[in-house]
Each structure stands twice: as structure tokens, then as C-alpha cells.
């Protein structure tokens, strides 16, 4: 769908930074800003991961995984 609507500033599709029309060709993404932007886009997925990880750790398999990890941490190698 095309439109004549434009804006002097537009967010960069890669990093979300607001870039002025005349500076679009010269824009380079700040790696930190790009990482923040991508994590923000994935925030629902990250939240779901936290919930499912918490649920897994409550299962017998998850409790065993925690016990094993703690054992390996105390006795490396």
C-alpha cells in the first residue's frame, strides 16, 4: 500500500533510532541501541521464557536439573 504521507524523521528499521530525512544515507546503527531495540521487540517472548522456565524448574525434572547443576558447580570437572 503506497501513500504520500512522510515524516521529517523516521525510526531506523534496524535499531529504532529517530533519523532525520537528510541523514538517512549516513545513518549507522549504534550496536547497543540495536540490541536494546531487538530485545524490546522480543519482550513478550522473553517474558514467556521466564514463565515457562519457572514452571519447568518446579517439575521433578527441573528440580533434578537444579540439583545436578548445583552439584556440578560445587565439584567442577
Amino acid at each position, binding site marked *: *500500500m*503506497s*501513500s*504520500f*504521507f*512522510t*515524516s*521529517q*524523521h*523516521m*525510526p*531506523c*528499521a*534496524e535499531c*529504532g*533510532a*529517530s*533519523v*532525520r*530525512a537528510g541523514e*538517512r544515507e549516513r*545513518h549507522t546503527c549504534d550496536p547497543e541501541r540495536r540490541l*536494546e*531495540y531487538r530485545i*524490546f*521487540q522480543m519482550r513478550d517472548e522473553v517474558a514467556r521464557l521466564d514463565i515457562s522456565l519457572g514452571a519447568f524448574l518446579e517439575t521433578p525434572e527441573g528440580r533434578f536439573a537444579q540439583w545436578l547443576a548445583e552439584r556440578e558447580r560445587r565439584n567442577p570437572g
Partner: protein
Amino acid sequence: MEAAKLIARRVLEEPWTGDFDVIDEFVAADYVGHDSAEPEPIRGPNGVIEFIQRYRSAFGGARLTVDDQLAEGGKVATRWTVRGTHTGEIAGIGPTGKDVTVSGLTISRFAGGKIVEQWTTWDTLGMLVQLGVVPSSAASEVH
């Protein structure tokens, strides 16, 4: 009129830092604000605070900077720019994480050393284009 210009600047800029004292100090109790994006007038200092809070909660770290001012006959005209990151819901649009830059013009009318009325027009369409809810031409997109 230099004092009025300074007051208009402070009333526009300072609330975006989270400091609302300037509104109680310089916005009249019977203040009326006319905003191009608002169907109803903004009334009183509390109305101004609620209006700014709504945008601050949607745009994390947003700041308003004054670009230019003119003063004449008890009125101050201020051209400004707001920059912020869209981290909360606004107009039904969920957070996008995008940085947004929006400009506008406010005319402030003074009486008794306080702002009694303001007329503001701002680039609402530009904000919607930047948030990606209004299609823009391919040439205007970055990357």
C-alpha cells in the same frame, strides 16, 4: 516580554523532566488549553499535568526542547521538538521501542504573570507515520 518567553519555555520544557512545580507556579487556575489532537479543551493546571503524564508514560525519557520563540501583545509563540522512545501504549498503539521526533507550535496567552490560555498544533500525523500505523512512502523509510 523576555520574562514571558522564559515562563513559556519553562512551562513547556520542565514538566517533561518530571518536574511539575512550574505548572502550579505559572499556569492559571482557570487555564484553558486547545490542542489539535484533543477533542476537548485542557482545563486548569491539573489538566495540563494529566495531559503531559499521558504522553510521558507512553514515551520513555521524552524531552521537549524549545527551538524558537516570538513574543507580541501579551502572547508568546514557541516552536518546539519532542523526542522520546515509544515504550507505552498511546492511542491504542502498543509499545514499539521506536524513537520518535515530533515538532509543534504553541501560542501562550498571558494575564497577571501567568499563562491563561494556549493553542497548540503539532505533527500528529508524523508521530503516527513514525510509529508505523500510517503507511509512509518507501522513500522515507530508513534501511
